[in-house]
């Protein structure tokens, strides 16, 4: 069998031959047993290739990847959670200096944000903490808190200290923050938060990070602190039921 014939057979099973070429090949197949035998081998190989691909597909797609593509309100910039086995490899553009500068700003942002809301003696936002304790994560939409703010819990992940942390977006009177709180000593404490500004001319649901450099700060925090994969919906529901134990 010539290489040209083999290439013809290969294109034939892919249905890529011009009709007249395919007709000529079919005519030859009818009278050339060796050619027909080779075609049958190729067809068997084709079936096996698809079967092997299906076998490799046995595990479900990671929820974290599906979540990234969920439709979001216009203007939200998706954040990378970077819970991959290539940490820091493909995203080296995430400048450490920018992160440090943003973290410095956060120390000012978080208390300012919490001012006017119920807080405990340690300055923790008790309404937010109660909501983080009980609300499941959601890809879109909002949960209304008792004080009128709106919360979207984005995901839950374990940290290296053995606690659970949750990323969230909290909206209040035309502004918003995106943050990560961790459950310390039975209560949720915000570890990092980035202001999200309203986009001019957009509705209240549309936010963007305060600056381009901030967009990776949350991702960077999660990358540095996550000790495992994001909890799926079922696992998260179990954690909520068991008070995150």
């Amino acid at each position, binding site marked *: 069998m010539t290489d040209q014939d083999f290439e013809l057979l290969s294109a034939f099973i*892919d249905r890529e031959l011009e009709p007249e070429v395919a007709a000529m090949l079919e005519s030859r197949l009818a009278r050339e047993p060796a050619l027909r035998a080779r075609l049958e081998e190729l067809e068997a190989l084709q079936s096996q290739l698809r079967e092997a691909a299906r076998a490799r597909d046995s595990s479900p797609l990671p929820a974290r990847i599906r979540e990234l593509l969920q439709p979001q309100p216009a203007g939200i910039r998706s954040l990378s959670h970077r819970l991959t086995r290539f940490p820091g490899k493909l995203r080296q553009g995430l400048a450490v200096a920018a992160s440090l500068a943003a973290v410095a700003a956060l120390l000012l942002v978080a208390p300012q944000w919490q001012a006017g809301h119920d807080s405990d003696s340690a300055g923790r936002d008790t309404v937010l903490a109660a909501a983080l304790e009980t609300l499941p994560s959601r890809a879109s939409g909002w949960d209304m808190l008792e004080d009128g703010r709106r919360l979207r819990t984005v995901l839950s992940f374990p940290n290296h200290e053995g606690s659970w942390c949750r990323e969230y977006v909290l909206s209040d009177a035309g502004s918003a923050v995106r943050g990560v709180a961790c459950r310390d000593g039975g209560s949720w404490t915000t570890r990092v938060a980035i202001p999200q500004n309203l986009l001019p001319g957009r509705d209240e649901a549309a936010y963007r990070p305060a600056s381009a450099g901030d967009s990776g700060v949350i991702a960077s925090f999660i990358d540095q602190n996550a000790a495992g994969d994001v909890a799926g919906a079922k696992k998260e529901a179990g954690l909520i039921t068991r008070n995150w134990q």
Partner: protein
Amino acid sequence: MPSLSTSQRELLLAELGSLRRFCQSLSGSAPDADDLLQITVERILEKGMPADADAVKWAYRVCKNAWIDELRSREVRQRYPQQMAWDSDEAPSAEESAGQERALEALNVAMAKLPPEQRLALTLVAVEGKSYAEAADILEVPVGTIMSRIARARAQLLKYREAPEWE
């Protein structure tokens, strides 16, 4: 560049399974494939795509380029053959395996031995059902190149098939 439209997001969501198989074809292992898939999606979301772009073809190209970047950054080209284990360490034992499963495993091993450009072309067409023109568009080579790469890949796989472990 504009961010993704709702329809582009929906197209990508529907294509994630195929894209993941493509990632596996590139990276050679399920965990690496999932990481590559996530990086691909993140890169698309970060950089956006033109409103008139074919979201699916765009995603395949981003995926391919992300993997090339990854290889470059890690300088793993030399290690690539070792990486292409196709999860053979997760293969069921001989006692547990039916003959058909062993044949599929042998096929996976044989696929791993193919040159990457042949494996990608074959995966896109024979597994994902893309046309030669679509595969050429994704891999950014002429249609004739796709045709010959696929034929060479199949010829090589049939040659491996004659090896004793295939049966």
